[in-house]
């Protein structure tokens, strides 16, 4: 592979940042569902599964949309990879925090 054919880092940054945002959405919707009374019932998209169906489906939809948009913007560019990789990792970890019961119970 020559340097002429090397891909720019934008595609990787877009995928990572979108993944971080998708993870954050899982955590955010989990917390919102506990904190705001109408959110849980509004996310009850598949009755036997309950609000989990809406929370996770919506998070996946947002993740995919963000990914498509970012990829379109960045795919042929070099971006500040270190910065976006760090932000992505932080968002990923915030996503996990948002699903942690002792955390979201603070807002109940």
């Amino acid at each position, binding site marked *: 592979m020559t340097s002429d054919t090397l*891909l720019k*880092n934008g595609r990787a940054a877009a995928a*990572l940042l979108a993944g971080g945002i998708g993870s954050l959405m*899982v955590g955010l919707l989990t917390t919102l569902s506990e904190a705001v009374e109408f959110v849980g019932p509004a996310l009850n998209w598949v009755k036997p599964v309950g609000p989990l169906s809406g*929370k996770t489906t919506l998070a996946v939809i947002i993740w995919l949309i963000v990914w498509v948009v970012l990829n379109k913007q960045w795919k042929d560019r070099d971006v500040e*990879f270190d910065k976006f990789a760090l932000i992505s990792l932080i968002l990923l970890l915030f996503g996990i925090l948002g699903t*942690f019961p002792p955390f979201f119970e603070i807002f109940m």
Partner: protein
Amino acid sequence: MEITFREWWGIIHGLAFGASYLLAFTGGLLSLYSLKPEFLTAEGLKERIKRLNIWVTGMAVIAWATVITGTYIVYPWYRATPPEGTTDLSDYPRSLLLSIPEKAEWHKFGMEWKEHVAWIAPIAATVVAYVVMTYGPQLVKEPKIRKALINFFVVAFIAAAVAGMLGAFITKAAPVL
């Protein structure tokens, strides 16, 4: 010795996919970590990339299969509401756990965390699979991307491990029969 239909699904969801996920994670992580110029010849790189593609794609597919079967097949049996007046709650694990004060935390903490955190694993694993498939051999020249992928890979594993371990404990406390 009998395994019910629901238990079979529990085994597929937790044991078959869970063990495969662990295998794919180990293979993928080692392949990704060792993707360094000093470790590889041109011929070795081709072979390594092929193998890495299989591991990371496998991990992402297994992660999706695990959360989808867990959420849409096993979980509805777990959370089903017993009919009014039911005294034997063994077919209703969630209600059974909540009815026993010493076991209620398995639902309130265990299942509440498991059912949500598990969904972070396939998202992170898909990101890793996409970047590996897209960049291929170029990754050997991209230490920053490799490092970011390893971080995502490890977080994907931690999310799945938390969900898997809690699932095993919850199944012990109140199995889906």
